[in-house]
């Protein structure tokens, strides 16, 4: 690379960093004060892009029209953020952290469909910035003037944020609440107002980040989850709650990505290395390295004080054998009375039930929340498909070996993950899932790229849908029974104990990390089994089995059913899969309906469906007694 092209890539990277920084700063601000991991933050960014697109059309393609549209779009997104805070989140600040997360997932679904309804499914290409559409020549290369402006906007916003946070009363409150939220409440500050204002500012930043991208990037419906993944990475690399850290991380990642594109394909020692394909992975690699070296991010501090920690988890009760037996008999009998369609749906449900139970195992009793559980499901599915198609193994062997492959990945990923805890751990799991997704998505020659793998059909004796359903039931049912059994073994007790008090576990001679690592591998393998069974039931697999969407589906299933009961995740998987199927057959806007249903459940049953029904049942029994 020449000096000139290095400078050019640097400028490209800095321009890309500007929007990343704006989104991440907003996310960081909101997390710092409210402790909510706002999955809908990427959706706000997406709304910023769409909003700017429409407003520019309305206000005209003049410099004045363009810039008023950008600012107006950002402010409107800020109002949308306020709406989310007031209508949804404010009602559940006292609910368990994970339930707030579920609510923000629901908001993602709703916003995606609102965007689909208003702007349609086509990508919308925005105009260039009027007056800035020319290019500036630097060292013989042409750089769009707009990019140079973006490079300047990042530090300007950083400066404004710094002034806001250090020179105003509002800023002092925000910083105080980031350090110790309860103390600020105890001092008589109106928390509701503070939270709403923080949501407004954070959302404006997300909206501005989106709106500023309209000349560079078409508005499309996949931006929400793509951007939230980027924003998570940046906030975590920079350190949660640190605006300066977000700035630094955005620059590092923006520049690293630009260089990957700039370097292109290089041949080293006879190996061809495609750096441009690394762009999807590089930020997650940076994150993994940073988190292992500095568990709280570059400029982050250990997580703030939280006196009113969530209530201790209630004791776990084992499911009754009799009730389980009744369910098994019922499930065995279904194909005798139901049609083919129901059998296929049930096969899906059974796979997702094991997926959800394995996720629940790690995030509930073991206390390690995973945002990237689809990694193991998807890798299991791909392992099954590739062992069958490319390696030419018999279907039965592929089906059973695939979980071991998924488990092998969990050995590697888990080793890093158990070194962290809390939100940082969750983000690292997401990073590994995204790395897996990117590799699968781009490795055309092996995985078929975005098309996936086709023609993965079960052996003749299993080809009948009913027979395959019984196979799925046997595999996944055994998996679920195994996981539940392990929870009541000494090994499972160690995991629960470690969640309750790592300090005490260490003080009675337990090497907790070793157990947590083993738990990662166990659930990875079983999620892989679910993926493997799923792959052969569908006949084909695509990268979406590893996507963030699949991971959040799993989280929704677990949280919907309730993280505090064993049977909750199974019920959640069944209800979510069934409901999605039913709703999707009636409307294109199934996401909005699902999101609405989830929000309703979140607001009515803050302990999840099964937990909520249990509480209702207990109350009813008390009243009768």
């Amino acid at each position, binding site marked *: 690379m020449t000096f000139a092209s290095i400078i050019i890539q640097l400028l490209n990277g800095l321009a890309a960093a500007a929007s990343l920084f704006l989104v991440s700063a907003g996310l960081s601000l909101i997390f710092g004060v409210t402790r909510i991991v706002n999955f809908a933050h990427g959706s706000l960014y997406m709304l910023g892009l769409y909003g700017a697109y429409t407003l520019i059309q309305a206000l005209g393609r003049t410099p004045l029209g363009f810039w008023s549209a950008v600012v107006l779009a950002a402010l409107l997104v800020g109002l949308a953020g306020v709406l989310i805070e007031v209508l949804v989140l404010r009602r559940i600040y006292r609910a368990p952290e994970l339930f707030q997360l579920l609510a923000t997932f629901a908001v993602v679904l709703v916003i995606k469909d609102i965007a689909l309804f208003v702007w349609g499914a086509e990508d919308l290409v925005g105009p260039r910035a009027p007056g800035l559409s020319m290019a500036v020549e630097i060292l013989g290369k042409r750089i769009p003037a707009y990019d140079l402006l973006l490079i300047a906007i990042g530090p300007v916003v950083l400066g404004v944020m710094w002034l806001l946070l250090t020179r105003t009363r509002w800023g002092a409150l925000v910083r105080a609440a980031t350090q110790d939220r309860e103390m600020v409440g105890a001092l008589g500050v109106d928390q509701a107002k503070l939270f709403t204002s923080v949501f407004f500012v954070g959302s404006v930043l997300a909206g501005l980040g989106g709106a500023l991208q309209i000349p560079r990037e078409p508005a499309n419906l996949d931006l929400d989850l793509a951007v939230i993944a980027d924003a998570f990475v940046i906030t975590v690399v920079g350190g949660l709650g640190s605006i300066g850290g977000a700035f630094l991380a955005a620059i590092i990642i923006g520049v690293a990505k630009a260089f990957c594109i700039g370097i292109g394909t290089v041949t080293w020692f006879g190996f061809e290395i495609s750096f441009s394909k690394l762009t999807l992975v590089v930020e997650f690699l940076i994150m993994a390295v940073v988190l292992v070296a500095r568990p709280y991010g570059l400029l982050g501090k250990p997580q703030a004080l939280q006196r009113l920690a969530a209530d201790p*988890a209630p004791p776990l009760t084992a499911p009754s054998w009799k009730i389980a037996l009744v369910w098994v008999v019922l499930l065995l009998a279904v194909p005798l009375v139901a049609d083919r369609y129901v059998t296929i749906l049930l096969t899906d449900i059974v796979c997702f039930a094991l997926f959800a139970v394995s996720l629940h195992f790690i995030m509930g009793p073991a206390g390690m929340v995973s945002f990237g559980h689809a990694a193991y499901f998807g890798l299991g599915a791909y392992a099954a498909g590739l062992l069958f198609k490319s390696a030419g193994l018999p279907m039965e062997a592929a089906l059973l070996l695939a979980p071991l492959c998924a488990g092998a990945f969990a050995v590697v990923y888990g080793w890093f993950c158990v070194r962290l805890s809390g939100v940082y751990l969750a983000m690292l799991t997401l990073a590994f899932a995204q790395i897996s997704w990117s590799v699968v998505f781009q490795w055309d020659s092996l995985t078929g790229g975005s098309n996936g793998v086709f023609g993965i059909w079960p052996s003749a004796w299993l080809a009948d849908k009913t027979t395959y359903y019984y196979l799925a039931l046997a595999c996944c049912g055994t998996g679920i029974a195994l996981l539940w059994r392990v929870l009541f*073994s000494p090994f499972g007790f160690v995991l629960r104990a470690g969640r309750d008090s790592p300090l005490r576990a260490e003080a009675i001679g337990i090497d907790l990390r070793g157990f947590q690592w083993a738990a990662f591998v166990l659930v990875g393998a079983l999620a892989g089994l679910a993926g493997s069974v799923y792959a052969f039931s569908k006949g084909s697999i695509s990268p979406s089995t590893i996507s963030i969407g699949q991971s959040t589906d799993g989280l929704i299933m677990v949280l919907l059913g309730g993280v505090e009961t064993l049977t909750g995740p199974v019920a959640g998987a069944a209800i979510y899969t069934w409901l999605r199927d039913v709703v999707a057959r009636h409307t294109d806007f199934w996401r909005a309906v699902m999101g609405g249903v989830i929000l309703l459940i979140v607001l009515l049953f803050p302990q999840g469906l099964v937990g909520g029904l249990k509480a209702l049942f207990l109350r009813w029994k008390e009243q009768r007694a």
Partner: protein
Amino acid sequence: MSDAVLQVEGLHKAFGGVQAVADVSFAVAAGEMLALIGPNGAGKSTCFNMLNGQLAPDAGIVRLAGRDIVGLRPRAVWRLGVGRTFQITATFVSLSVRENVQMALYSHAGRLRALLQRFGAVFRAEADALLAQVGMLDQAERPCGVLAYGDLKRVELAMALANAPRLLLMDEPTAGMAPKERVALMELTAGLARARNIAVLFTEHDMDVVFSQADRIIVLDRGELIAGGTPAQVRANPKVRAVYLGSAH
């Protein structure tokens, strides 16, 4: 003192520019109750955390039955026979009282790796025996998350006893308890220590407890040991009086 269970020599720890513990040396013999006292911020907890490996000392030697244990992790120190209770109780809140003690027993026996065995049946009788000793058997089924603070301290004591320790480290074992309970818990501890020949090192703010239960007392002030001896000697020591009552007295 060659028969000392715990021997500490020249322990140092600084946090930034603050010397939290400076040149502290003492020893505890088997069956002895040694109280470590001092005003708030004297360095008692820092000292404690260095003894069981939670915190690495800047300098100094910690010998357990003659073996240097500096640099070992807390879990390794525990395996050498050191039980610990915390200033702010740390128990497994979602597990029952009995299960908490069973965890410690399982860990002591090195049998936690079993994946398919049922947890509940093994070590049940042993756990109940320990719970009976600390007076918690009647609450064995309750989850630790709902217990009163004083009861949690008892559970911690039972867990600390589960690995047949040679040394008990108790950081403010009676903080948060009613005055009557405090003396009762420390009487219980003293009885167990003498019966099983366990060395006990404890910090305590309640001077009634200290002067009635400790065999010996050492006094820490601003990171340094300023006095040591029997309760009567310490009570008479002018330096101690100055620290606790102010130099005007």
